[in-house]
């Protein structure tokens, strides 16, 4: 995981709460909003006026005008202040349009002059049948379902491997624990963005020492990694942490099926996995004591590739050139990683030269740049 992750967690949490949404915001329109069928939102410093408070569920457009003197933002909230969609930084005198796919139900529109506080709220209702409102390419629904299955499988398969690791720690068997460490993390690393979307599990199981907040107790894999490789001693506290790790991973396994997954979060998740490789693995920061970074690297790439392969049928139709490039780069990074295989794993990362680290970094860039365009390719035809 990344050392500084609060913003990432927040962003993913937002993405993950989009139950009602395969949502998106369209281009700023300098000509001003309005248009047929849009819900007009007139924001000022003291009011948040809507042209209608009832509209059919489905693809809903909000044409926002800021007539106030302060920069504002507009949120669409579902029950429990779950953010459906939002737009920040709407300057005085400017207009913008926000769109979202909204299921039938009750919502609140909030204007936040000065971009703070709970905002000025208006209750609105999306009418019609719930589930049928969001129309999506059935291929994408199939992709989401298959990815959800994959994520669950990874969690299911991780538990016994993690248990083996935890048992070795509790037995005080440093060698066995070291051997079990990296493989116990593979399923997690493959699907990490989904786990991160819960917000609370990742800081318990995968945080590094430098990522700890003030007063936060260090738990999880990396604390044990430090004990095994750096202090070379398993303490009584470590044994308790091994149990805690299993407990937290069980929580993950139980909740992973409920995670909000849609084509956009899948594609962005693939990108985030490569972001992790680029900032954490290639630099050797993630596994700074065990130097098993290449195992994580491989798992991150595999997880990204899985999401990609599932989205590929749709992406191929919308952006064939992108798919061709991604196929090529996934192959290339796989071949590059193969050069560092050793036994059933990979060479210790502290033996990888700076020049080779650059090659790996360059390989990730070559893949990550096109993968950053995948989300757009699954939601829009080019």
């Amino acid at each position, binding site marked *: 995981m990344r050392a500084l992750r609060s913003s990432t967690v927040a962003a993913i949490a937002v993405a993950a709460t989009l139950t009602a949404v395969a949502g998106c915001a369209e281009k700023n329109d300098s000509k001003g909003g309005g248009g047929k069928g849009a819900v007009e939102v007139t924001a000022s410093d003291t009011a948040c006026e809507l042209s209608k408070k009832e509209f059919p569920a489905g693809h809903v457009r909000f044409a926002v005008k800021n007539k106030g003197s302060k920069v504002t933002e507009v949120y669409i909230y579902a029950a429990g202040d779950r953010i459906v969609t939002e737009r920040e930084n709407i300057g005085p005198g400017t207009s913008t349009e926000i769109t979202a796919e909204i299921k039938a139900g009750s919502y609140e529109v909030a204007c936040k002059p000065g971009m703070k506080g709970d905002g000025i709220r208006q209750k609105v209702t999306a009418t019609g049948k719930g589930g049928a409102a969001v129309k999506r390419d059935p291929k994408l629904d199939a992709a989401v379902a298959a990815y959800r299955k994959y994520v669950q499988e990874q969690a299911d398969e991780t538990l016994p491997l993690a248990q083996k690791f935890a048992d070795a720690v509790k037995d005080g068997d440093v060698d066995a624990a070291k051997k079990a460490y990296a493989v116990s993390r593979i399923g997690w690393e493959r699907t990490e963005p989904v786990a991160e979307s819960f917000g609370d599990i990742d800081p318990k199981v995968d945080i590094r020492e430098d990522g700890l907040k003030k007063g936060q107790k260090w738990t999880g894999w990396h604390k044990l990694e430090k004990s095994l490789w750096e202090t070379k001693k398993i303490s009584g506290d470590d044994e308790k942490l091994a149990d805690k790790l299993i407990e937290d991973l069980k929580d993950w396994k139980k909740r992973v099926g409920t995670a909000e997954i849609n084509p956009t979060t899948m594609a962005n998740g693939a990108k985030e996995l490569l972001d992790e490789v680029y900032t954490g693995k290639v630099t050797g920061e993630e596994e700074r004591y065990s130097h098993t970074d290449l195992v994580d690297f491989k798992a991150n790439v595999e997880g990204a590739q899985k999401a990609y392969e599932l989205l590929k049928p749709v992406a191929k139709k919308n952006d064939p050139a992108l798919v061709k490039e991604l196929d*090529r780069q996934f192959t290339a990074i796989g071949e590059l990683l193969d050069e560092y295989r050793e036994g059933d794993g990979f060479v210790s990362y502290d033996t990888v030269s700076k020049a080779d680290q650059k090659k790996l970094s360059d390989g990730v860039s*070559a893949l990550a740049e096109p993968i950053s365009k995948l989300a757009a390719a699954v*939601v829009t035809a080019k």
Partner: protein
Amino acid sequence: MTTDGTQQGTADDAVDEGTVSSGAPSRRALLGWGGAGLALGAVAAGGTAAALRTGSDAQPAAADATAGSAVAFHGAHQAGIATAVQDRLHFAAFDVTTDDRDELIALLKEWTKAAALMTSGAAVGGGAVGGLAEAPPDDTGEALGLPPSRLTLTFGIGPTLFEKDGKDRFGIKDRRPDALIDLPQFPGDNLDKTRSGGDLCIQACADDPQVAVHAIRNLARIGFGRIVMRWSQLGFGKTSSTTPEAQTPRNMMGFKDGTRNIAGTDAAALKKHVWVSEKDGPEWMVGGSYLVARRIRMHIEIWDRTSLKEQEDIIGRDKGEGAPIGKKRERDEPNLKAMLPDAHVRLAHPDSNGGARILRRGYSFTDGTDGLGRLDAGLFFLAYQRDVQDGFVPIQKRLASIDTLNEYIQHVGSGIFAVPPGVRDKNDWWGRELFARSA
């Protein structure tokens, strides 16, 4: 989601139609109120309008060099050589990772389009804002609202593009110019491989460092998957100018540098010493030039402990006026015999090198400190010439062997590049003639 498909089309269309896209936000358009307040370094550049050149030898373009204006991208020669030297530099060397000739050509075309846009002050592709919310913007955005800042992007090709490890990578091995030699090892060289060489290079010069960095960053991004960044260098103060009527800039040693540089208006000297002629060949290089880049670390702390007299003796000029030893004014004709035999100016002077002249375009750099508390500072030397074997090589051979200045400097990075002629129009692209009639 269902988005109006036409929005996606604007970027490419705009590029095809001309340099400044109506769909992509233009930095100039965003500066509709004039941009005078954003002229930034342009005034400090001391550049006058006289020497902005982009076209033929005889006709300096009458461009406004005082307000961060645009330098024409198209012309007989690439801009960024004889055109007025801007304040800031970001130089980048790339290695090509694809082995597919068509992919390389496609990249060069994309690069050329992006370069034309950026030098005009526009954003690349579909711009930095206003695109699909789900997609990362085409342009990275840090130059939004900034004027073109006289940005020039100058493209070069290193020896390894023609042949690497004995392999003719792109079917152009037989088109490698004889003048694109592998530079010899000079005495005292301590070259860092990770700061040397490169299959391709791009020299970005601008009056605003952010504009130069933006250009390199976006070109690198366009290239990922086909190229990798090998090394790059920032420069913050020009050390030579091509505009002799302006004040001669000083280098990190505190001395005026480039007093006798080839002027951008001196068509005869450019023709004789800088531009590759038809007689020189190869045909695809006619109107181009050869670039030598050297990262020269200066041991500035010990230089600063050197007495004024010794500094002046070592350089061969006085420190205040910049006059040659024994003369009054900076531009007085030097009397080489009045200088010490190993004075820098004497050794580098054309009269000491069979008339060899090069067009210098270097920048000072300071890349923080070196871990020992010393400034990692020096000169990023850039020199253009018609043939390095008549230019940089003989001059540097002399300097490297006997120049007293060597006690204070060390060459730590090196590159040589063939810089093709200018991009003629919007259908032309960097390297077109190289790839046109081969294989």
